[in-house]
């Protein structure tokens, strides 16, 4: 599904503060599997995730998505792929204040220019699935932590992507909500989606349905 071949990422190359977040990482992520990237903070987890999720391009190395080379694609195409293939769940819910939950959820689909009625129905269905439909019109500031997390999950699913990327999803959730989150991941796996999670929360990487755990340290994969 996703293949990284000795990917390197160097920040502000050439001047004294040069720092290589990743050096020659090779990784293969199978289809319909839940992979957890484990490692202390500063080990390049987030950089690796942003390269896998086509948010940024590696300084060197190859990235293949379903066999197609996407390393040197222009940003326009990279974003198009990201919009259709990946759903992002961030550590923070990252919802935009001042606009309603519904608008927040529909935001990723704006550039696609879908008819508003269809988009609204899809968004309402997604919110109803995670039973926060009653908060659709309320402002984002009034949501609780769990509700905000679920809203950002619905937003990630709006373009029904088949790969879900979650960066430290349970960092700000209590155990009950973390279990609820793992159940949601369970449903993704059942629907045939591939899930990639970064976490150092034992509740996540020791959970039964995780297929593979990858350890990351100082920009390299520990075998």
């Amino acid at each position: 599904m996703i293949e990284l071949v000795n990917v390197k990422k160097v920040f502000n190359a050439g001047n004294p503060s040069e720092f290589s977040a990743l050096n020659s990482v090779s990784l293969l992520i199978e289809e319909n599997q839940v992979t957890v990237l484990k490692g202390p903070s500063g080990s390049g987890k987030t950089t690796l995730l942003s390269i896998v999720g086509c948010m940024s391009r590696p300084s060197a190395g190859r990235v293949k998505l379903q066999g197609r080379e996407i390393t040197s694609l222009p940003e326009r195409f990279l974003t198009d792929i990201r919009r259709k293939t990946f759903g992002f769940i961030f550590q923070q819910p990252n919802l935009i204040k001042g606009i309603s939950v519904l608008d927040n959820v529909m935001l990723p689909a704006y550039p696609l220019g879908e008819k508003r009625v269809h988009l609204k129905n899809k968004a309402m269905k997604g919110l109803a699935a995670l039973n926060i439909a009653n908060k659709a019109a309320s402002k984002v500031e009034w949501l609780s932590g769990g509700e905000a997390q679920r809203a950002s999950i619905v937003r990630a699913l709006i373009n029904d992507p088949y790969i879900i990327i979650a960066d430290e999803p349970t960092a700000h959730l209590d155990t009950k909500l973390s279990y609820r989150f793992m159940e949601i991941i369970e449903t993704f796996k059942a629907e045939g989606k591939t899930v990639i999670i970064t976490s150092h929360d034992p509740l996540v990487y020791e959970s039964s349905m995780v297929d593979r755990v990858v350890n990351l340290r100082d920009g390299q994969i520990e075998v």
Partner: protein
Amino acid sequence: MYLGKMSTIEFEGFISTEIMRNSSLFFIYITSGIVLLSLLLVHASVSESARQVNLEEKAALVKILKLTDLCLFTEARYTRNLSQADLNTAFQDHPLSLEHFPSGSFTQPPQRTGERP
């Protein structure tokens, strides 16, 4: 309590609160702006024709009394009738007499004083 109540009302009316999308508001705003602007243009042409009578009266007065200048720069004798030569009319010779602001400083020096016959 108050916060709770408001959100419930909001919910029942949820479907209806979406009365007007922002972009339709924007288009209505733009069209009303353009309509207002064209109203101005219409008003301009309407009042121009209404003023025609007034303009003709002034023109007739100019014709009878053989006036040559507008009565705009009235603060000094030599700025009153700019086109006529006077003891020192603006256009008679060097015009940059600045002591009488604003007309003194606003009159433009003739372009080609010396060259032509």
